[in-house]
């Protein structure tokens, strides 16, 4: 996902200057803590979009003592890019789970008790769930339904993570009994003379 498409969308709504764009972006994603974007990132993105001809920029001379500001507006190619992005589905990202890696490392190395890791993580997730629930409770359903929707999504994900922890806990012994995934060994360095074969398929590792 990109900040650039969000910027295009916000400019499709109306022309804005950089500072305003950042504030609008934060409002959409649910606050600074949900998705922090530094001002520099907004400005570099805007520059690139301008170079690519997706947005246009005019200088606002500022009234009275106000300094001049650069106001950005959506150009036709930008509208095209936006509509292409909107039309596509989004592939969910479930990989690169740090906790999963921790659990497997703990199992493989014996450096930590996996059951403790699960308990610690469960405490973390419940704390997070509690905080999100409190925040959602504070939202006004008459005016802040978009925020509620976003919080509900995060809450549902946490619920799934907690359920997964229960399953992991139940299957810990089973995972422990099974061999952990090992990479197939590849010979390193220059192949010995006479061996012109590639390293694919890799040689079958010899059981030690």
């Amino acid at each position, binding site marked *: 996902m990109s900040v650039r498409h969000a910027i295009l969308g916000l400019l499709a709504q109306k022309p804005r200057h950089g500072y305003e764009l950042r504030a609008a972006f934060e409002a959409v994603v649910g606050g600074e803590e949900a998705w922090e974007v530094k001002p520099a990132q907004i400005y570099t993105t805007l520059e690139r979009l301008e170079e690519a001809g997706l947005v246009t920029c005019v200088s606002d001379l500022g009234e009275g003592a106000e300094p001049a500001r650069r106001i950005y507006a959506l150009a036709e190619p930008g509208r095209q890019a936006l509509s292409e992005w909107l039309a596509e589905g989004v592939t969910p990202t479930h990989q690169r789970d740090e906790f999963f890696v921790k659990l497997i490392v703990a199992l493989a190395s014996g450096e930590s008790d996996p059951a*403790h890791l699960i*308990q*610690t993580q469960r*405490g973390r997730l419940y704390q997070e769930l509690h905080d999100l*629930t409190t925040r959602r409770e504070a939202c006004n359903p008459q005016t802040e339904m978009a925020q509620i929707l976003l919080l509900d999504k995060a809450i549902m994900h946490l619920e799934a993570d907690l359920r997964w922890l229960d399953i992991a806990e139940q299957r810990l012994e089973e995972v422990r009994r099974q061999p952990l995934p090992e990479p197939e060994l590849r010979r390193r360095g220059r192949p010995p003379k006479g061996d012109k074969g590639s390293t694919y398929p890799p040689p079958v590792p010899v059981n030690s």
Partner: protein
Amino acid sequence: MSLIQTENLTKIYGAGEAAVTALDHVNIAVNEGEFVAVMGPSGCGKSTLLHLIGGLDRPNEGNVRIEGVALAEMDDDALTKLRRQKIGFVFQFFNLIPVLTAVENAALPVTLDGVKPSEAKKRAAEWLTRFGLGDRLAARPDQLSGGQQQRVAVARALVSEPALILADEPTGNLDTRSGDEIASLLRDVTKKYGRTVVMVTHDPRIAAYADRIIFLKDGKVVDETNLERKGAADQIASKMKEIGD
């Protein structure tokens, strides 16, 4: 002083080979005004714990103290009296009487306890109004949604003005949205109205409303997470580690 304290609370069902230890030397304390959730896999002893705290069942070993008074030293009459005065129960099924109105249902337990019906109805109407049912006092259960019926059941538990509410899967029979409403209402019962709530649930979403979660497994407390203190979860985790090492 804690409102509830358990000391080595142990409950065994059956005998000999077939004996099942539902609770195994459980020591917990619940403070006044606290909202505590009890969680754990099915068969972990959650409901047994709630029943023993509420004096609905007797332990094989150990004790429950409510406001410092040991339940084990009470005879059945004294226990019944304590249950009626100090404890309100909320269950998964609302068990409202179909022919009675919301206010009559909520007033029923204290009416049976000898409070004048007019006074009982006045108190019931007050609780129902606090729970947003002020305009549904004369509705019968079949005219109320599941969430509304459960609110009547919570009001019914509070009409005797108990210090403690014990709730066993109070949202188990409700859709997500009504479940959230009931959990939020139980939170209000502790935060706005100063009662203590101990709730058994298997639903993480509902447990997240509590101040503290007690985790049971195989009849033992395996963890506690204090949600109201930031960073508490991490503290507890590192403490558990110390104990474990």
